[in-house]
């Protein structure tokens, strides 16, 4: 059992520590959180139940002890949609994590027309890759490949349907004014993108 002591901390630090403790706990390990103020207790309870985590609360002289069972499930977020999953990319144990980083709308440099053709061909082939990559990250002009009129949108959709996480760089989306034209993928900041790249064993850059 792991213990997280939040006594003396003010909101939202107790929640952050709780979340950290859960992240660090091994699957199946319980986490015990000590909380000494009612607001933080109520917020932590709400957070845990919204995230469908099982927990019990016992109280003793103004101190509350929240015991959370971490469960065997490695996914922490309540969100089960294909988009906006937490930054971490995990692969079934023993397999390497593969991430595709698409940094441009064209493949290679030299001839733009050829680069466009190659990129279409890259995505057509990528959907056939076995096993599928764990995530595809789009940044710089790469985000343009995910717009509603993109030639490769259907392939990106197919990847997303297979469970491949699609991350789109928010700064890039804003820069090109594409916000309303992106039917798939999650909008990600640099922290998320960096975490995805950091967790990768292999990075493919077309």
């Amino acid at each position, binding site marked *: 059992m792991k213990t997280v002591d939040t006594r003396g901390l*003010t909101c*939202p630090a107790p929640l952050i520590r709780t979340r950290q403790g859960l992240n660090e706990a091994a699957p199946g390990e319980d986490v015990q959180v000590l909380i000494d103020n009612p607001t933080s207790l109520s*917020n932590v309870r709400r*957070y845990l139940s919204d995230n469908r985590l099982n927990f019990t609360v016992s109280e003793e002289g103004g101190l509350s002890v929240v015991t959370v069972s971490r469960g065997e499930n490695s996914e922490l*977020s309540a*969100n089960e949609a294909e988009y906006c999953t937490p930054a971490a990319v995990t692969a079934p144990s023993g397999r390497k994590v593969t991430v595709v980083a698409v940094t441009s709308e064209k493949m290679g440099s030299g001839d733009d027309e050829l680069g466009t053709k190659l990129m279409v061909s890259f995505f057509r082939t990528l959907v056939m890759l076995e096993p599928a990559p764990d995530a595809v990250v789009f940044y710089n002009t790469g985000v343009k490949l995910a717009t509603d009129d993109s030639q490769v949108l259907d392939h990106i959709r197919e990847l997303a349907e297979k469970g491949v996480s699609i991350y789109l760089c928010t700064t890039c989306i*804003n820069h090109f004014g594409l916000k309303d034209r992106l039917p798939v993928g999650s909008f990600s900041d640099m922290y998320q993108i960096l975490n995805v790249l950091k967790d990768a064993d292999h990075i493919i850059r077309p």
Partner: protein
Amino acid sequence: MAFDLLTTVETGGCSAKIPPRQLEELLKDFPLPADPRILVDISTHDDAGVFRINEETALVFTTDFFPPVVSDGYEFGLIAATNSISDIYAMGGTPLLALNIMMFPSARIPMEVYRDILRGGSDKAREAGVSIIGGHTIDDYPPKYGLAVIGTVHPEKIITNAGVREGDDLILTKPVGTGVILAGHRLRMVSAMQLDGAVAAMKQLNSAGAMLMQKYGVRGATDITGFGLAGHALKMARASGVTVSIDLRSVPLLDGTYSLADQGCIPGAAFRNLDYTENETRTSATADYSLRMIAHDAQTAGGLLMAVAPERTGDLLKDLHVSGHPEAAVIGRAGKREEATLVLV
């Protein structure tokens, strides 16, 4: 070393405002004045009251003040004034005059800080074309500052919570996340650049947005402050008799907000606002948890949420993008009233 105003506020994001549900309960049976010249009162939970003087002119009147949100007195003054004046803009008005409202512990904080706060307020007021013609100071700890502001609006061009029409698009002019970023800053989880981003947003006047609302015939709008995007959207939907749907993924966020919220940096006010909205809200099963909480994050001097007829959305958005609001975005729309007043997708 300059005095750090943040050392005067102990509880971080949790405090400052009375929970909205409690406030509504308290004011429920409060008698409203029955003067026919009062065109807007608190019954629609609007940002300011409006009083008709004659056929051409109505007065818009509002006040707002709060404890420090940043370390520097001058910056706190700029932000507090921006926030106070914003209510006039949210009603489609032009701000004219203001009074300082200050609570300041003269024995505990150097008096230069007092001057810095007032200087910030006065500089921001000048930028908005507002003359500060007086004020009032009380000795109190922690310090609090804001303005009471008067502006004018044409009686037929008032913009209220109740003016949203079915089919309108909803545009948000500033990115959200100031509560999350400020809480993260206290815990040293925020980079200098991310903090600067939030501070810049908090001291940006909503003047351009107000002008463009009149240009495009907007009649329903509010500014996003303590009740968060979701809380204010709910108040608008209620007052207008529509259901507002927000696409959480299209809400512009301040840099750093998502990752902080995902790490559990969710201020207490967001939970309070969630308590307030949830009985009238349907949240889609696939909605992202962190984005949902960010939509409830209490904002300081947030942007305008404006309802515009869809055929004018494109032009209004373009104008906003070149008027200091490059991140303005359509974040949802208003539809026929359903069982849920607010829908988060």
